[in-house]
């Protein structure tokens, strides 16, 4: 048991650091610093650079374009990309859909879809939640009826509504859970469909969230015609795919490296801000205690994640234990956002990103947008299976209750 990096691992870290320094796009850095919503091209800039380098899909099997990195190398990668504040790779195609395709898809489907996901040429969105199916996802009602069309081919005709579709406004394709057998038990009548978002009958409508951003959408499907060969795995067995995807969704969710970086930011803010007595806020006994407790909690999470990674490297996939990472990871992310907002005092209040696009600032630069991040961050304990659902998963799958 040790925490030492081998000389090879240290060389790898240097290589990663240098690559990021030399190749991270300046235009993207500028857009991130301005804090405005990114364009579709900006979202994909870093993805495409990494695809070219062969580093975009560390989680994939090597023969499909994965990096073949050891768990330690992956850990170094996540540390270095977080340290440099690289834009995270969008998860929808890369880490949510791709594992479903390479685990359950046909060879034909792998050939058709994986290269475009890898190269960032197709933007995917997720069609899981519905207005009446949130935590109880299996109660979803979007209906797909199988027909033979005039061209002699088989299609599903899809009708229903999906919601909370993140960045669906940019999506080229979506992966959807639909009900193909209305009479079966909730989990057993569901199929997993890939749908071209340009198909007639699809309408994407923005949902503006409380901090004023447009990230999520409603997706309406009105007699949308989907070829049967766009179904992954067997008809009525899409729940198997859905569950596998959720486990993958949870495993990267701890966000330890990014939280470490945000903790550094918080310390910088709290060293600059003044307490009531005029000393640095970070030397105020109440505030520093909160920072210390958070830092310790984050250390514990880091080692829990490392233990999970070590378990995975010995052949166990991401198990239900990854629910711990989701619960603690999101609690820590939210706590960091709360403390940052608390630290800036009065300057948490100005709302400067108005719809005219002006981004003038008042007060210190670091205060700008902190409230919005905190408001937006409340989603993390709700999405990906709410933290209460994660507790249900641990109770059932780990504790056998």
């Amino acid at each position, binding site marked *: *048991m*040790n925490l030492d990096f081998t000389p090879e691992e240290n060389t790898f870290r240097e290589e990663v650091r240098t690559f990021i320094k030399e190749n991270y796009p300046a235009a993207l850095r500028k857009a991130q610093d301005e804090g405005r919503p990114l364009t579709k091209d900006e979202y994909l800039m870093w993805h495409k650079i990494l695809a070219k380098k062969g580093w975009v899909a560390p989680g994939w099997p090597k023969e499909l374009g994965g990096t073949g990195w050891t768990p330690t190398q992956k850990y170094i990668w996540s540390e270095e990309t977080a340290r440099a504040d690289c834009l995270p790779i969008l998860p929808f195609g890369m880490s949510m859909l791709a594992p479903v395709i390479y685990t359950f898809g046909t060879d034909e489907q792998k050939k058709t879809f994986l290269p475009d996901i890898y190269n960032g040429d197709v933007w995917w969105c997720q069609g899981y939640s519905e207005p009446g199916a949130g935590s109880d996802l299996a109660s979803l009602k979007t209906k797909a009826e199988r027909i033979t069309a005039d061209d002699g081919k088989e299609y599903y005709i899809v009708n229903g509504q999906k919601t909370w579709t993140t960045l669906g406004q940019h999506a080229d394709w979506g992966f959807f859970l639909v009900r193909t057998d209305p009479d079966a038990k909730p989990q057993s009548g569901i199929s997993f469909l890939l749908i071209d978002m340009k198909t007639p009958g699809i309408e994407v409508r923005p949902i503006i969230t409380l901090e004023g951003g447009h990230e999520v959408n409603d997706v309406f499907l009105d007699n949308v015609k989907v070829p049967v060969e766009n179904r992954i795995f067997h008809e009525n067995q899409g729940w198997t795919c859905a569950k596998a995807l959720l486990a993958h969704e949870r495993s990267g969710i701890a966000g330890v490296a990014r939280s470490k970086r945000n903790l550094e930011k918080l310390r910088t803010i709290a060293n600059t801000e003044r307490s009531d007595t005029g000393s640095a806020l970070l030397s105020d006994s109440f505030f520093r205690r909160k920072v210390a407790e958070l830092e310790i909690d984050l250390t514990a999470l880091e080692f829990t994640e490392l*233990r999970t990674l070590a378990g995975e490297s010995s052949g166990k996939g991401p198990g239900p234990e990854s629910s711990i990472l989701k619960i603690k990871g999101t609690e820590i992310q939210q706590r960091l956002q709360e403390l940052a907002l608390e630290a800036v005092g009065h300057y948490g209040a100005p709302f400067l990103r108005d719809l005219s696009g002006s981004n003038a600032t008042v007060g210190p630069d670091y205060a700008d947008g902190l409230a919005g991040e905190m408001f937006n961050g409340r989603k993390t304990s709700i999405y990906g299976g709410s933290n209460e659902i994660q507790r249900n998963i641990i109770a059932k799958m780990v504790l056998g209750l």
Partner: protein
Amino acid sequence: MDFSFTEEQSMLRDTVAAYLADHYDFDKRRAVVTKEPGWRPEVWKAFAEELGILGAPFSEELGGLGGGAIDNMVVMEEFGKALVVEPYLGTVVIGGGFLKHSGHAGAADLIGGIIGGTNIFAFAYAEPKGRYNLAALETTAKKDGAGWVLNGHKAVVIGAPFATHLIVTARTAGGPRDAQGISVFLVEKGAKGVTTRDYPTVDGLRASEVYFENVSLGADALIGPADNGLPLVEKVVDEAIAATCAEACGVLRKLHEGTLEYTKQRKQFGQPISSFQVLQHRMVDMFINVEQAVSMTYMANIKVTDDAERAKAASAAKVQIGKACRFVGQNAIQLHGGMGMTDEMAIGHYFKRATMIETAFGSVDHHLARYEFLSLGAAA
């Protein structure tokens, strides 16, 4: 980076677990701790001779098994599961730690006695008014020719009733609470002028108030540097914290498992109470606390050998473990309902040990303050 145990460490765990399964069930332990002498010398003898574990963290040159902090961690976690009362912490971890790190001329012989089971150590550091400050010492040692004269009162010295030797911290120079002017001494418990008042503790251990009245010590009683012993004390206490965290992990696992089992059997409203979501979520939160405590214990035991990281790591772990002891311990009793209140069930005994570990070598507040200082710098 590697989180696996070596083959030797896995064997050590299996050996200890198998012995405790055969010789250390709850009823036996309860009978032992409620009457004199409060421990089983024959178990200690078996640790030394049959299992050979008292040499776990000592080098092979000294006659040990060549392990270190991780080996202590393995042993202590198993001891926590069985609520072992024999003085491994005081003797092997703390006594052995002082001897190993100090370069004391008699260290090899004394460690030989530890490994053989004949030397038993207790750590006399706490004082009635010192709380958790290792430098708050009213016990004094005054130079007397080549040797020293020791006077003072040490509080709640765990394991002292069984000990052959005491490790004593004393002020040899400077004012109260000064970091400088502290020295560490090895005192034979039978030495003239040493008296004790022995008593049981609430968690089944034995301890003593120890009084020193003009105890005359030779020059070779000094362990480590004269007047500058605090860094050595801190180092050994951090090692003791890392080991105690491991014991806590064993205790916490049993508290959690015991609660799972009990709630599956206990029926109310016509169903096992484990089917109620409010209790399920509580037990999940207990589980998360246990896993986070285990993670921090690994972290602390890995980093405890790195002097640059040691103190921060030990305090961080002690904060996490202290909180977990309270949360898991109290909820284990709560979920057992009235049965949790009985002396008959093991759960209460684990709870009592967890509660004492929560403040052993410093409370959550103490270690948060220490961590803050180490991580964030001095306060205003």
